[in-house]
């Protein structure tokens, strides 16, 4: 089971419940005055982190101290970060600045994103439209809420993972190699051995751009690292550029992504070969750990890639493909399912239906499920309690 990246600090929490209401999959709840994130539901979209004004919820990456543990260190830089630069010169300066943090090599991921785009366009499947599995938020969302579409997911590794596998094979003569990934959003932080313990990943450490950038800034203006960016790589994380491909349907923003998944579940959208679904607004350039503005970043892409000749990275097939996605099975019998559903509806009738989250659950329905499961009781509903108090008076 995948971990949730959301870290909670009780001392900072002001109990405003905004995170509970922000969660699109009802994974956040409050129990005994503490925020609890249900790992099995959480898609790591980071909306609760965005909603938190008191820094009570954060997503944290590894620290740079770990560089010392390896003979040779590589830092992966996603096109989402590069696109925050206004010119190629600025990008080259940024890459140099990252290298000066102590890395032996800084690798631009845009050619690997380009590979993902190329492979996804060539992917053959009966389950049209195929869905690109580049974002783990979408993959988790499909696994938990849109299971009908699970065999539409292209079983491909994440671009950073492909790069890490590729580099691992190329750098065998360098002693112990440490691969660090600069992450533009909370969900990417999970895909590394540290800090969240994804042991089957070839990435050793996930770094948060938000935490690392203050350190990088001190190194700016000290030199350049020559870059040859891949335009297709930028296209793979930008819905406007993806829209240039006639058989690709691209959507950004969590709500729109859900709209598209709804339609696909109805068997619509078969006229498209590939769906690119990016839950952050403006695609990955809108990742919440980035310092820039997604709209501005999008505007930077043409000038960044205009004169570039970089093309997709050729990598071995074993780096690209992964096992098919599997849904978690509901082992309850039909009778058990119906009985639970009936009881939940019965309890729901008694609840006020305001979805106020005062009880700590996002909606009355989730509360009703918890009551039927025996985790809560009707007396935990604040509205019902205040109503009965008025009755007494």
């Amino acid at each position: 089971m995948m971990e949730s990246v959301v870290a909670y600090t009780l001392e900072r929490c002001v109990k405003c419940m905004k995170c509970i209401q922000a969660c699109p999959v009802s994974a956040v709840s409050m129990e005994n005055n503490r925020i609890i994130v249900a790992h099995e539901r959480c898609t790591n979209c980071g909306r609760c982190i965005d909603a938190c004004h008191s820094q009570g919820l954060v997503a944290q990456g590894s620290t740079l101290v770990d560089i010392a543990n390896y003979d040779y260190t590589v830092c992966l830089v996603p096109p989402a970060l590069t696109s925050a630069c206004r010119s190629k010169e600025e990008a080259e300066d940024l890459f140099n600045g990252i290298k000066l943090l102590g890395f032996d090599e800084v690798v631009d991921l845009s050619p690997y994103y380009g590979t993902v785009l190329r492979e996804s366009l060539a992917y053959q499947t009966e389950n049209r439209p195929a869905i690109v599995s580049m974002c783990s938020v979408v993959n988790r969302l499909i696994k938990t809420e849109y299971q009908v579409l699970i065999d539409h997911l292209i079983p491909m590794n994440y671009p950073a993972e492909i790069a890490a596998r590729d580099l691992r094979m190329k750098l065998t003569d360098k002693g112990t190699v440490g691969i660090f990934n600069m992450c533009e959003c909370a969900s990417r932080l999970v895909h590394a051995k540290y800090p969240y313990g994804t042991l089957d990943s070839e990435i050793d450490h996930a770094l948060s751009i938000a935490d690392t950038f203050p350190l990088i800034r001190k190194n700016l203006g000290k030199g350049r690292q020559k870059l040859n960016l891949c335009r297709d790589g930028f296209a793979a994380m930008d819905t406007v550029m993806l829209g240039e491909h006639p058989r690709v349907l691209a959507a950004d923003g969590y709500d729109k992504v859900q709209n598209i998944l709804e339609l696909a579940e109805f068997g619509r959208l078969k006229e498209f070969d590939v769906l690119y679904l990016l839950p952050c607004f403006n695609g990955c350039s809108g990742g919440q750990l980035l310092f820039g503005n997604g709209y501005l970043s999008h505007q930077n892409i043409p000038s960044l890639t205009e004169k570039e000749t970089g093309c997709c990275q050729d990598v071995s097939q074993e780096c690209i493909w992964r096992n098919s996605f599997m849904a978690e099975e509901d082992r309850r019998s039909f009778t058990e399912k119906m009985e639970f559903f009936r009881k939940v509806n019965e309890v729901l009738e008694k609840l006020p239906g305001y979805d106020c989250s005062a009880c700590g659950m996002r909606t009355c329905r989730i509360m009703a499920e918890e009551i039927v499961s025996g985790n809560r009781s009707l007396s935990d509903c604040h509205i019902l309690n205040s109503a009965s108090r008025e009755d007494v008076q």
Partner: protein
Amino acid sequence: MTVLLHEDYIVERGDFKNAGKVSSTIKEKLKMIGIDAKILRRISIACYEAEINMLIHAWGGDISMDVSDDGTVRFVFKDPGPGIPDLDDAMTPGYSTASDDAREMGFGAGMGLPNIKKVSDSFDIASSPEGTTITLGFHL
């Protein structure tokens, strides 16, 4: 056989803006119950096609859903007319009488009824100028 869950829905005449809303609600309900994804896929496709048919070919209509304790779900799509003149034609893949308006919105490829029949476990259709009734059954 006892009906464990009965739901009624209305499809308003000409309400293209909400096309597919009822099917979405049905899908949500069945997801809440925890219906197997493979069956849910077939139910979703059938309900959506039938709901859209009501919008483009008929003057709206009523949809009902019955989930029974023997593990079956039955849908009845009942519209007030104008009826299907030739059922054999309507069941032929590719045959369509949809208006240009409807086609412009991406509907009316002539695959509606054949598709519904293909994905459902039982299919029954009756039509007269007073209306069309489609009854679908699925084993959950």
